[in-house]
């Protein structure tokens, strides 16, 4: 009985890594698209701060009626637009998370259902071409956790924002950049490298 279960599980693992690979590309792309948005958000916050710190009445602009209010209105509108776009991007990150979670939990479910016919020795066995089932399951779980936590952190960050709180916008844009985890991304790429032969084999 054990042979078909192992084959089936390995097939499912292959599928899961394939989808992880695709999702990783999507994730990276979405994060890249966020970079200009975050920097324009920071820039807008700077403009709003400059506007607040300048006494328009003491400048050559003093003759223009309601200038600070009008400019502020325009800048806040722009902040709104950027936040809207950013929130769409975070939604896209959310669907990457969903897709990875779904795939990974399907693999685990299959593993649990067949755990009787998958002795430890089979699970930890590895070869030159294929990492062990246990390792692969662990990598998948790590990847799933990485996307889950990254998504929640970024979503929370955006939810904290209020357009009239300049200091907050400035901190949030900094935090956004610092959330980027080189290590986390590397780990996923590393896992994908390690399974590359496994994915090509049948």
């Amino acid at each position, binding site marked *: 009985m054990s042979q078909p279960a192992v084959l089936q599980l390995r097939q499912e693992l292959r599928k899961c890594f394939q989808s992880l690979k695709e999702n990783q590309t999507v994730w990276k792309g979405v994060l890249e698209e966020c970079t200009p948005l975050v920097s324009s958000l920071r820039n807008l916050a*700077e*403009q709003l*701060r*400059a*506007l607040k*710190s*300048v006494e*328009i009445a003491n*400048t*050559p*602009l003093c003759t*223009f009626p309601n*200038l600070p209010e*009008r*400019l502020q*209105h*325009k*800048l806040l509108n*722009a902040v709104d637009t950027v936040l809207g776009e950013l929130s769409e991007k975070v939604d896209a990150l959310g669907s990457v998370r969903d897709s990875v979670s779904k795939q990974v939990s399907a693999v685990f479910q299959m593993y649990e259902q067949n755990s009787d016919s998958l002795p430890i020795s089979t699970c930890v066995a590895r070869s030159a071409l294929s990492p062990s089932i246990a390792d692969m399951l662990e990598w998948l779980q790590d990847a799933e956790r990485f996307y889950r936590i990254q998504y929640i952190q970024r979503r929370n960050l955006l939810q904290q924002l209020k357009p009239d709180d300049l200091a907050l916008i400035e901190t949030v844009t900094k935090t956004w950049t610092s959330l980027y985890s080189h290590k986390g991304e590397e780990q996923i790429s590393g896992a994908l490298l390690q399974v590359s032969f496994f994915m090509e084999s049948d």
Partner: protein
Amino acid sequence: MDDATTPGRKGNLTGSARKVKDNAADWHNLILKWERLSDEGSSIATKIVNFRLSKDRSVKDPEVMMEGQISSAAPEERRAYHSNPELEEECTKLQNIVDKMAHILSKMEKMVSSEKGICELETFQYGENGRPTPLFHTWSTKQFAEVSSGLYEAYKQELALKSTILQEVAHTTNPDLCMVYLSCWLYQPYIQDNTKLLLESLLMETGYRAV
């Protein structure tokens, strides 16, 4: 003249309707041109500000160091401070942009006065209440004149703002004020959303946009 009262029949508009419709198209084109110039000017203004700010920094730094070292660096910096052909060139470019915008504004002004003229003509032809049926869909001729002058006022104020920025931007050392100049230039505070709405309604009324 009756043809003119039928909306949607292109090509055979005459008289006031022809003029009003042409003006609407001109509004659209002039505003597009304006936006292009404004974008172009925005990047030039940013360059000017960066010049100013970085120059300030580079002039201040050697001055701090000058106490220890007397020699070569300082005079060079001085010269850079007194005349900077690159900065001047950018200022000239910005001046050109503002001049072009002023030209656009003068065209806008002509349209406003021509529409005022059309209104006066109608008062003369039909009396105080104007023509019995609208030129296009629903607007009275007076409304066209009002929209035109509303748009004109917004752009007039904006040009005044941009001219002020042009005069001041290269002479300001306060980085915050520089930033405010740049945001004013870019975000055009006197062109509000309702300005765009006015333009769109004008285009819709005259049949350029589908209702």
